[in-house]
């Protein structure tokens, strides 16, 4: 039973899905049917330490860097149009492999060149981000980017963070008006 997310709401992944070892983040949207540049949404994650920064640039997993330095997080490929059924972009996380000094994994969604193309989440049809149990694929949490993403081009969907011995998911839904670059820099990536 997926949890309907509200901003700031917490989900204990260990309680929602006991024994959870792997999670997937899925991003989906419909291809553009009106004229103009394609809607190119990108899923990305930041593995950050307790200071909220990446340990190195390799811990920013996105279309140009498909795997974190330790291999715990892998991006399954860039989709530039939203074509295809189901999740259009998927990021796999093996929580047991996440190094101890990674305190949380921040999941973000960006519309590639959204600002220069005059696009925003509200213009994209059926856009969503969701968290799935990597074993079996049950949906744990979901965010409706089309309805609730607003008129921004970059947003932090949520955080998967350590809390004692377990992992929790916090829905954030915070838009970044300054876009991709500002978002990436805020986590200490040299970009």
């Amino acid at each position, binding site marked *: 039973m997926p949890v309907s997310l509200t901003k700031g709401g917490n989900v204990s992944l260990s309680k929602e899905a006991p024994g959870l070892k792997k999670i997937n983040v899925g991003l989906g949207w419909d291809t553009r*049917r*009106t*004229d*103009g*540049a*394609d809607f190119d949404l990108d899923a990305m994650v930041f593995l950050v330490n307790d200071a909220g920064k990446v340990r190195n*640039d*390799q811990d*920013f997993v996105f*279309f*140009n*860097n498909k795997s974190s330095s330790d291999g715990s997080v892998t991006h399954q490929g*860039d989709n*530039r149009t939203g074509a295809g059924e189901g999740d259009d972009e998927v990021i796999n996380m093996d929580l047991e492999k996440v190094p101890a000094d990674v305190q949380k994994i921040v999941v973000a969604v960006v519309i*590639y*060149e959204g600002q*220069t*193309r*005059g*696009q*925003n*989440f*509200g*213009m994209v049809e059926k856009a969503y981000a969701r968290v799935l149990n990597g074993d079996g694929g049950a949906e744990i949490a979901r965010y409706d980017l*089309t*309805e609730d993403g*607003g*008129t921004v081009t970059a947003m932090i969907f949520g955080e998967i963070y350590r809390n004692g011995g377990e992992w929790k998911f916090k829905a954030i839904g915070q838009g970044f008006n300054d876009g*991709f*670059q500002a978002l*990436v820099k805020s986590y200490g*990536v*040299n*970009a």
Partner: protein
Amino acid sequence: MQLATGQRTALATLNLSDQLDIAFDVSGSASAYAPLCFVLNADSRLVQPDAMVSPAQTHSNDGAVTYQAERFRVELARLAPGVERLAFAVVPENGDLRGVRRGEVSVSGPGGPAAANWSFSGTDFGNERAIIALELYRHQGDWRLMVNGQGFADGLAGLVRHFGGNGVPDLQPAAAPTPAAQPAPSGGLNLSRPRGNGMPASSAPSSTNPPSTSSPASTPSPSRPLSLTKITLDKQGQSARISLQKAGTQRVHVNLNWDAKPSTAPTPSGGFLSKLLGNVSGVGKAADLDLGCMYELASGEKGVIQALGGNFGNAGGPPFIKLDQDDRSGASAGGENLFIERPDLIRKVLIFAFIYEGAGNFSEVGGRLSFNDPQGNEVKMQLSNPAALPFCAVALVQAQGGELVITKEERYFSGHRDCDEAFGFGFSWKAGRK
């Protein structure tokens, strides 16, 4: 409340409920801007082939949507079962959206002041000849409003196709009563009405030549590269930057720049930089740094491009690499520029810089290299190592598995020959002079 394109909000937050007015006020170079409402199901398809309300067809079948004088009145409670969405469009007659001087669509209670409005003008659009302005739709039990702001270069035909219809209806009222539309003999329903006496022809394409629904007329974005390659920057060295851009076959611009070194006898015009650099050592001559590259194309062709010896390359043919300027002093703000016109055709390109004369080392004159692509991505490298050697292999650009990988090298050599040996191009060398 001023709405932005893409903005979505519940009608309840606008204090709107069952009855609304959607009013259009559009002016510009077109002879008219026809408002149009599509009555749609949950999949954004027309509930019937003629489920449109316009100046030519002023009532929906259920009577829930009516049109009069640039204004639609909507009674949501009267909508027939299955109607989940209403899309309100603007279609210029004999023109496109770029000709709009001022456009506004407002939403209000019946006869009341505007609770929300969307303003637009021609600069918001490309070659669209019809746009969806607003949509009202039911989402999880609540009616919501969104600003769509997107459209179609083929105008009304594109709109109708978008909503699952076929053909092009007249939008202006006929001069005399006309019979209802007849189904077309083949294919989908023809929504055209016979033209009234003396009415001007619609700006939309004739219904006798309906667009194919299987080949949308939308054109691919010119910014989308044909070859789906990307630039990745290998993160060696602290000044390296990650490329956040997806690049394709667009040219890569390499720029070398440095600061002019003052002469040992400062002149009044030496200025700001002279004061900064006033105590540097070296011969009393402006520094001359040269940018160049050693390349190997995917075809196997190899060569060297540099001002020395006059090998400036060729932008229009192999190797599609061109050096455009020999800045002898660093005084030119542009520095020296190398353009890799077809990065998709290279195997590897080693970008080098060397001190022709006038400087002791690269860091003394602030040598810096940047890569730019047309999308505004920039990768910068500073030559910060004060090695006494005059030749620097700055960066290696390689095609790897459909990607372009730019690696910062910053390795110093005594000259071309040593560098070539280190990177294995295998040239034969002789001395040259400018």
